C-alpha cells in the first residue's frame, strides 16, 4: 500500500470462539482463587515487619524507558509493568500532485481525451483527494529486563475521490476497509547507561491484509473491478523491518535518533512487490513536567517504486501507456519526503495512572520529491493511547 509510508505490521489471527471465551473465563476464575493479600494491607506493615522482609533485588542500571517507543522500537521496562498496550489512530490526507518537485493540480494530470494526444504524464482517471485512516492495536510484553516481544494489528479504512473523462464517472468515490498486515516483533535493549540506551529491533510482517480489494471503477459500469495499489490493505508479501535507535535523557529532556527499513521479499500472487521503505528520524521531548510534555519529530522517508505490476489494473487499449490512473502506474510510486511533527503527551502522574499517557502528534511534509505524477501528502495526525500493566 504505497502512499501509506509508515510501516504496517502483522499478527496471527485469533478467532473469538466460544472455546476461547470459556477458557479465558476459567483462567480468570483460577487466577482469582490464587490471589494473595489485597494491596491495601501492605501499607499497614509495621516498621519492624518491613525491615524483616526478604528483599528481591533489582539491577541498579535499569531505567523506565518506555519513552523510547518514540522510535517505533519498543523498550522493556524493568519494573512490574510487563504488558504494554498501545491504541493508535492515524489519519493521512493526500491532496494535489507532485512530479518531482513540480506541483500539479488534478486537472493538470487529467487527460482531456480523444482527439487530444495523451501525454505520458496524463491519465483518463485521476484521484483528487485520498484519505487514509488506520486504527491499530499493539501489545508488547517484557520477557526479560532487556527483551520485549510485540504483536501489531492494524485496521485500515481508505477513501479516494476521483475525476475522470469516462461518461458516468465524471466524479466518483471508492473506499476500502479491513484488516491490514499483522506483524510480530522483538526488541532488545542492547546497551544501557545512566544517560541513554541503544535499542535494536526486528519486526516480521505477514500478508494478512487483502490485495484483492475491488470496487466500482470506470473500468466497468456493471461490475466491481480490481482497485489500484493505493486502495489495497496489505502488501501481499512477507516483509522484514529492522530498526535501531538511540535514546538519551536528562532531568528535563528526552531525545533520540533512529532508523528503520521495511524490506519486502519476493512478489505477491498478483505479480508485484511494493517498494522498500527507509526511514531516518530524530526527535526531542521536554519532560520537566509529568503532566504535559511537548515534543518535536523530524522524519525523513525514502521509498522505492513498485516492482512488477498487477495486470488487472492495465487498460491495454489506452494510447501512450496502459495505465488508466496514476495510482495504477508502478513507476509513479516512490520518492522522498520529510515530515515535521510537533506533538504533545498528556498524563496524570498519580496512582495507577502514572506511566499511562495520551499522545497527539501531527504535522505536514516540509519537503517532498515524488516519482510522479503522484498524490502528495497534505497533512497527518496521530492520536495514541498507551497503557502499561
Amino acid at each position, binding site marked *: 500500500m504505497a502512499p501509506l509510508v509508515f510501516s504496517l505490521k502483522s499478527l496471527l489471527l*485469533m478467532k*473469538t470462539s466460544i472455546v*476461547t471465551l470459556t477458557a*479465558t473465563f476459567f483462567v*480468570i476464575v483460577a*487466577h*482469582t482463587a*490464587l*490471589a*494473595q*493479600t*489485597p*494491596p*491495601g*494491607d*501492605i*501499607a499497614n*506493615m509495621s*516498621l*519492624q515487619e*518491613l*525491615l*524483616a*522482609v*526478604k*528483599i*528481591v*533485588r*533489582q539491577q541498579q542500571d*535499569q*531505567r*523506565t524507558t518506555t519513552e523510547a517507543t518514540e522510535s517505533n522500537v519498543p523498550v522493556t*521496562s524493568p*519494573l*512490574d*509493568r510487563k*504488558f504494554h*498496550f498501545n491504541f493508535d489512530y492515524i489519519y493521512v490526507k493526500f491532496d494535489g500532485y507532485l512530479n518531482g518537485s513540480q506541483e500539479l493540480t488534478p486537472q493538470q494530470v487529467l487527460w482531456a481525451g480523444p482527439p487530444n494526444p495523451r501525454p505520458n504524464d496524463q491519465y483518463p482517471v485521476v484521484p483528487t483527494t485520498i484519505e487514509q485512516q488506520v486504527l491499530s*492495536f499493539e*501489545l508488547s510484553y517484557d520477557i526479560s529486563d532487556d527483551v520485549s516481544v510485540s504483536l501489531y*494489528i492494524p*485496521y485500515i479504512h481508505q477513501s479516494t475521490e476521483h475525476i475522470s473523462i469516462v461518461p458516468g464517472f465524471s466524479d466518483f468515490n471508492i473506499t476500502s*476497509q*479491513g*484488516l491490514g498486515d499483522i506483524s510480530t516483533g522483538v526488541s532488545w535493549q542492547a546497551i544501557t547507561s*545512566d544517560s541513554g540506551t541503544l535499542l535494536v529491533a526486528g519486526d516480521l510482517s505477514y500478508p494478512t491484509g487483502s490485495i484483492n480489494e*475491488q470496487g466500482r471503477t470506470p473500468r466497468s459500469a456493471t*461490475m*466491481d473491478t480490481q482497485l489500484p495499489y493505493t486502495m489495497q490493505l496489505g502488501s501481499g508479501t512477507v516483509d522484514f523491518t529492522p530498526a535501531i535507535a538511540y535514546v538519551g535523557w536528562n*532531568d*528535563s529532556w528526552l531525545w533520540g535518533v533512529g532508523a528503520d527499513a521495511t524490506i519486502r521479499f519476493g512478489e505477491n500472487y498478483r505479480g508485484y512487490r511494493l517498494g522498500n521503505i527507509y526511514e531516518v528520524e530524530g526527535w526531542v521531548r521536554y519532560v*520537566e*513536567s509529568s503532566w504535559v510534555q511537548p515534543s518535536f519529530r523530524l522524519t525523513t522517508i525514502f521509498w522505492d517504486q513498485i516492482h512488477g505490476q498487477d495486470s488487472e489494473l492495465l487498460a491495454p487499449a489506452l494510447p501512450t501507456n496502459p495505465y488508466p490512473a496514476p495510482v495504477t502506474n508502478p513507476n509513479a510510486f516512490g520518492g522522498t519526503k520529510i515530515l515535521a511533527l510537533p506533538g504533545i503527551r498528556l498524563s496524570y*502522574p*498519580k*496512582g*495507577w495512572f*502514572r*506511566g499511562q499517557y495520551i499522545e497527539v502528534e501531527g504535522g505536514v511534509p516540509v519537503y517532498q520529491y515524488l516519482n510522479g505524477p503522484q498524490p502528495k501528502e497534505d497533512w497527518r495526525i496521530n492520536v495514541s493511547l498507551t497503557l502499561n*500493566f
Partner: protein
Amino acid sequence: MPVPNKARGVWRILIMCAWLLFACLFHAHTAQAANSNPNQLEEYQAKALLIYNIAKFVIWPEEAFTTHPNRFVINIAGQNPFGNAFYFLDNKTIQGRDVAVESWTGLNLAYDYQVLYIDSMGLQEFSHALQSLQEHHVLVITSNVDLFDAGAMVYLGVESENLIFRVNLASAHKAGLEISGNLLRHADQVYFDSSNESGGQ
C-alpha cells in the same frame, strides 16, 4: 465479485481486543495483590513503604507546609525507579495531610514538597542543592551512599536480603526536622555530626 461483509471481521477483532485487555487488566490487579506477600517484597516496593514509614516519624515545622497546607508531597528525582510502587498511598494521609508522589522538576523554587528521593546527581551539584533543601525543610532520602556521605539525611540500602536505613541526624537538624526516637532505634546507623561518623546502633 461481491464485496465481503467487513462488519463481522471488525467485530471479531474488537471483541478479541476487549478480551485481551480484560484478561491483562485482571492479571495486573492480581499481580499487584500477589506482590503484597509480607514475606518477600521487591526492592523498590519495600523502599517506597520505608519512605512512607519514615515520613510518619519525622516532624516538620509548620512553615514547611505554607504553600499547600493540606498536602504532603514526596518528590522523586530523575528517572523514577519506583514505577507504581507508591500505589498503596492512594487515599492515604501522612500527619493528617493527603499524600502525593510527584516528579522532581529540578529547579522547583517553590519547594512545596517535604520529601525528596534522589539517587543520581553530581556531588558538587548536590552540595549546592542541599543547602537550599535544608533551608526549606526538605527530608532528602537516597540509596546512593555517596550522596548520603555528602549530607543526605536518610540512606536506604539492602544488606543480607533485608532493608536497612541510616540517618544523618545532624543534616536533619540543619533542615529543622525532628526525628522520633521510635524511628532511630530501628536505624542501622545514626550519625550525630556532619562528618557521618557513626554515633551508635
